[in-house]
């Protein structure tokens, strides 16, 4: 199993706070990998480091064998590594279809392409993906007018439109009505299996991530605490204690 992302001894501090402390992990290709940990354990910081949002203090980050730790965000994105945000970010003054169209990947875009129209196949693809996430009927609405949950779905669809090799998802189910989470998990899984997108997912919702992920890394206090399959992580004492002690029982997902 080839590793899509190899993080080696990455550290990042903000002033006096050490957010990531010599973290090493690997995200294998074609699977769904989870990243969990209590609040403040450094998960989003790690994501930010990987996508180039800020420079790291030390360590190495490789994407498909290429060292990306000093690349800038757009360059990393054009390599096929995208992320979604905790506070969902979309282009709020454009309608959904346009949000999708502009999300097409720009890897091989030449200067003259800027002045051409989008071919109709792209519009078809955009509408198909909108349909995939259940937003087809909203496709002509201004995206800023959608509800929070719908915007999250749009952001996800936009990421898929880009045909990334890998997608970092920051709490994809946060703020979604619990009755609708199943639909989302299903779509995430299909993205991984049918569309060949490797997923690396931060989650706080334990049933979701245990259900979805093939293997999980757990962070605590900026360090890597444990990793393994969902069953192994669920029963790992250190992980249980990290979530502020107590007996966190993972409900069986039905």
């Amino acid at each position: 199993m080839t590793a899509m992302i190899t993080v080696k001894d990455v550290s990042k501090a903000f002033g006096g706070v050490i957010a990531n402390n010599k973290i090493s992990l690997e995200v294998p290709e074609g699977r769904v990998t989870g990243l969990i940990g209590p609040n403040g354990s450094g998960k989003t910081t790690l994501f930010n480091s990987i996508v180039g949002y800020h420079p790291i203090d030390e360590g190495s980050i490789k994407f498909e064998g290429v060292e990306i730790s000093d690349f800038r965000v757009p360059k990393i994105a054009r390599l096929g590594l995208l992320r979604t945000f905790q506070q969902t970010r979309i282009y709020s003054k454009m309608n959904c279809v346009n949000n999708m169209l502009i999300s097409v990947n720009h890897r091989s875009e030449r200067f003259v392409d800027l002045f051409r129209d989008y071919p109709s196949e792209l519009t078809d693809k955009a509408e198909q993906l909108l349909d995939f996430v259940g937003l087809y009927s909203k496709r002509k609405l201004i995206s800023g007018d959608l509800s929070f949950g719908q915007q999250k779905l749009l952001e996800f669809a936009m990421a898929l439109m880009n045909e990334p090799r890998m997608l970092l998802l920051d709490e994809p189910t946060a703020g979604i009505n619990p009755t609708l989470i199943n639909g989302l998990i299903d779509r995430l899984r299909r993205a991984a299996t049918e569309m060949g997108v490797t997923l690396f997912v931060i989650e706080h919702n334990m049933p979701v991530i245990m259900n979805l992920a093939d293997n999980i890394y757990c962070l605590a206090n900026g360090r890597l605490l444990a990793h393994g399959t969902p069953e192994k992580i669920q029963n790992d004492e250190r992980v249980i204690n990290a979530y502020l002690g107590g007996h966190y029982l993972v409900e069986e997902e039905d």
Partner: protein
Amino acid sequence: MTFNWRQLALYGIIAAAGIAAPFVFPAYTLQITVMWVMILFAVTWDILGGQMGYNSLGNIFFFGVGMYTSAIVQIGLVYDVAKYASPVGGIKAVFTQEQYFTGLVLGFIAAALVCVMFSVILAYIVFGLRGPYFAIGTLGVTLSAGELTGAWEYVGGGGGIPMPVFPGEPDDRSLLFYFLGFGLAVITFLFVKWMFSGRFGLAANAIRDDEEKAEGMGIRTMRVKTTGFAVAAFFLGMSGALFGNMIGFVEPLEVAFPTVTFGIFMVIMCLLGGKGTLWGPVLGATLFHAFKEVTWTYMLGWQWVMLGSLIIILVVFFQQGLVGWMQEKWPEMFGIEIDEGTVAVALAGPEIDEGPRRGGAVQ
């Protein structure tokens, strides 16, 4: 780019009115020419400010650079610029028809090209700034340009430099500059309209809506920004060349780089008409110019107070501008869809999603 009958009719009316104007109102030819230049100002400002979210207070920089470039070319082809500009040993300069018109054409071309060149260089200086820093930075660049040019003896320093005299009748002169201005404004508008109908438009809007997101999705933001800047510079440069010739005298602070006047007018016109819309800047420019021409002379020193107050009122109460306001009132006219009201079917899956239903709670 698709046309429909309504649009074609609109363009036809404007074209006809534009062509007829100097013959129907010969006394106002100069004012209407300036109006076309103002429209050009507004349309080019909107590329950056309205569509891309980069509010520039320094677009007038290209106006001035274009003006001086064409002055140097037009004069320099025939005479020594420094001697010509010098207030003391000044040459009594006469330009033949051939010299004049060759100079004019070359001057325009040079103005456009030099401005594009500057815009690419400047892009690296100003596009790392966001929001208010960008505004103040561009303001600083323009103010600097005005001051530096004022100290540049080659082009007459603070005293300025007279432009070549038109070899012909004053009426012909007015007509020439009128149609140059009209033509330039029309070409600018059509080009910008075309540019924003394709990918560029979406890319620019994405940068406006969330630049970090755009970068995170791999959009080549610097390329988009620089292109927009260069297009604006191209047309602004030529408008500067036109204006310098029309006024007949080029001076750094009042004529070429009027930062606090025309530089700010650009912003007000777009705010008034509606930022980020196609016709907003045009409407705003026309109304602003008309209002200004009519009321200015009656204000007796209070003009600027009125202007400043207008800025405040617009910015505080009427941010969306006229076209923006119309878009809110009658969205269908602009092709904007509003949610009629649907039940939460989004996540249940495509088989249940039947499309919008009337009634019910809006999400």
